[in-house]
């Protein structure tokens, strides 16, 4: 693996003030961020957030309405797709149906003018890399979804692109296969050392695979960070809501002291917790994840009275809805004991949580 330059975190792609409008509709507001060499970078967001548009602008299929895109420091604005050392794995895979698998993989190399022997060696290597060497002479129609996915990867990786773009490549696969392909993708990225830019709307996929995630919403960047940072320290309500599950309670900001804020909550308690963008007198949300609430209450934590209003048994976990009078809290509880459900609907109960687990998010 090539580790030169990764110490100073060389930039593979620089997005500078890039925006995109279709007519009067602004699909992407001006965004600026960098994608580092050798990282697995994910663009995550709901459909229509502009993530695919961004990817297509890096690939050269769309022209930015404003701003510039740098690929390894060089401005690639105006360059047609075939002059960018960037390859794409398409959502539909887009394998050429009139070519065999090896012809598909060789296509980019031919266009780059690789000599025949070098080309054939590379194709063989790539097919081996994705464990498809025995299918070289088949055509795409004869493959299963997972196999097509592998060939699409081999084809896009063969020309050793500076950046590999992946447009929701797992969305067409069924659940089991999707899980397996996640690991395979991650392994491939490590093996090849190529920068991956991955687009998805599936937050679990993003958390599982990425080095860093860029959460996009409403055509702008909501947050960029490691999976843990995105989950644990969401920068706003959108991110906290989109990634994982959480309870939102309206909170009144009493005071802000650096990274912490003191708020009054509808649960009848006043607490001090890490904050983002909270302002005194302003509206804010207190967010607490279901798995961070203790059921039953633990000593030393903030405790609240309530009753069990509902229970959803999900195998590994049971989700409880606890009615505290002022608010309903969703609580997840691991089913460690052999019996699934430990609490009955209607049962009065005390729940608790630590103030450090709470996040205060300004509106």
């Amino acid at each position, binding site marked *: 693996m090539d580790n030169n330059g990764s110490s100073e975190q060389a930039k593979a792609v620089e997005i500078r003030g890039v925006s995109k409008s279709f007519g009067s509709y602004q699909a992407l507001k001006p965004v600026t961020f960098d994608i580092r060499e050798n990282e697995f970078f994910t663009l995550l967001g709901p459909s229509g957030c502009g993530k695919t548009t961004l990817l297509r602008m890096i690939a*050269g*299929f769309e022209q930015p309405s404003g701003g510039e895109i740098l690929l390894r420091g060089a401005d690639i604005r105006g360059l*047609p797709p*075939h002059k960018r050392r960037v390859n794409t794995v398409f959502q*539909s895979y*887009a394998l050429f149906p009139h070519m065999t698998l090896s012809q598909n993989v060789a296509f*980019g190399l031919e266009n780059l003018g690789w000599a025949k022997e070098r080309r054939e060696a590379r194709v063989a290597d790539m097919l081996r890399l994705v464990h498809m060497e025995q299918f070289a002479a088949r055509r795409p129609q004869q493959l299963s979804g997972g196999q097509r996915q592998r060939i699409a990867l081999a084809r896009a990786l063969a*020309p050793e692109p500076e950046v590999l773009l992946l447009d929701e490549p797992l969305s067409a696969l069924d659940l089991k296969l999707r899980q397996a392909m996640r690991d395979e993708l991650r392994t491939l990225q490590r093996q090849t050392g190529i920068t991956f830019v991955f687009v998805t709307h599936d937050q679990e996929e993003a958390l599982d695979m990425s080095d860093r995630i860029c959460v996009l919403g409403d055509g702008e960047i909501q947050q960029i960070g490691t999976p843990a940072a995105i989950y644990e320290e969401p920068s706003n309500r959108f991110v906290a809501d989109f990634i994982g599950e959480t309870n939102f309670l309206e909170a009144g900001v009493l005071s802000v002291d650096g990274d912490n804020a003191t708020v009054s909550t509808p649960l009848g308690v006043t607490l001090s917790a890490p904050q983002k963008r909270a302002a005194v007198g302003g509206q804010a949300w207190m967010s607490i994840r279901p798995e961070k609430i203790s059921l039953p209450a633990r000593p030393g934590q903030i405790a609240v009275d309530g009753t069990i209003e509902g229970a959803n048994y999900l195998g590994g976990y049971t989700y409880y809805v606890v009615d505290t009078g002022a608010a309903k809290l969703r609580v997840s509880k691991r089913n460690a004991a052999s019996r699934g459900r430990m609490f009955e609907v209607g049962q009065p109960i005390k729940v608790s949580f630590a103030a450090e687990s709470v996040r205060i998010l300004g509106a």
Partner: protein
Amino acid sequence: MSGNSDVRRYPGFGPLSVLFFVYLYLPIAVVVFYSFNANRIVANWGGFSLHWYSTALSNAALVGAVKTSLLVAAVATTLSIVVALMAALVIVRGRQVRFRRASETIVNLPLLLPEIVVAVAVLILFSELGLTSGLLKLMIAHTTFCIPFAFLPIRARLQGMDADLEEAARDLYASGWVAFRRVTLPLIMPGVFSGAMLAFVISMDDFITSNLLNSGGATTLPVYIFSLIKQGVSPQLNAISTLIMIVSVVLATVAFLVQRRR
């Protein structure tokens, strides 16, 4: 009554369909049957004979008309397929095409006008231009009305083709021309082929325009057949018709099989 248990079936549709196919093929069968009639008078059966085929094939006027038709059809097919292919690529694949719908309507204009109007239009045009070469007139006119028939199958094929494939080619370092030659063209080839077949048959089959333009010594096959019909029903005419039908069926079958191939 197993059919009745299927709610999708309707009684009577089957027999009606059988009658329909009889209606469709009976006249053709009659022509073929009488073409083998030895008797000069069509309706009186005089025994089996291939006589009329040999007279048909040695008929110089017929051979001349076939040659004219083939020449006109070849030129019209080639021109119309090139023009239609270019138009289809822009109309289906072009980005930010202004007046896309209007452009498509213009390409399909000959389908929206009754053919006699198209024929009158080109007749008047050629008379205003003072064009006298019958062959040239036919080639121009046939190219015009063949364009939509060449266009529609190509358009359908292009629309059915995933645009991702062209993007994938561009992504894999193919220039626009290479992407067209190596990905788009091979994949829409069945459409191009059926468009060409259709244009060819439409040109070979044309009567209205060719008849109205019939001057300058260029008589096409249908115009010649028309002149034979005017002279009255004859066994030789049946033989000629049968020969034409055989050629048509072969062409249609090839076109059909190509279209079916995925």
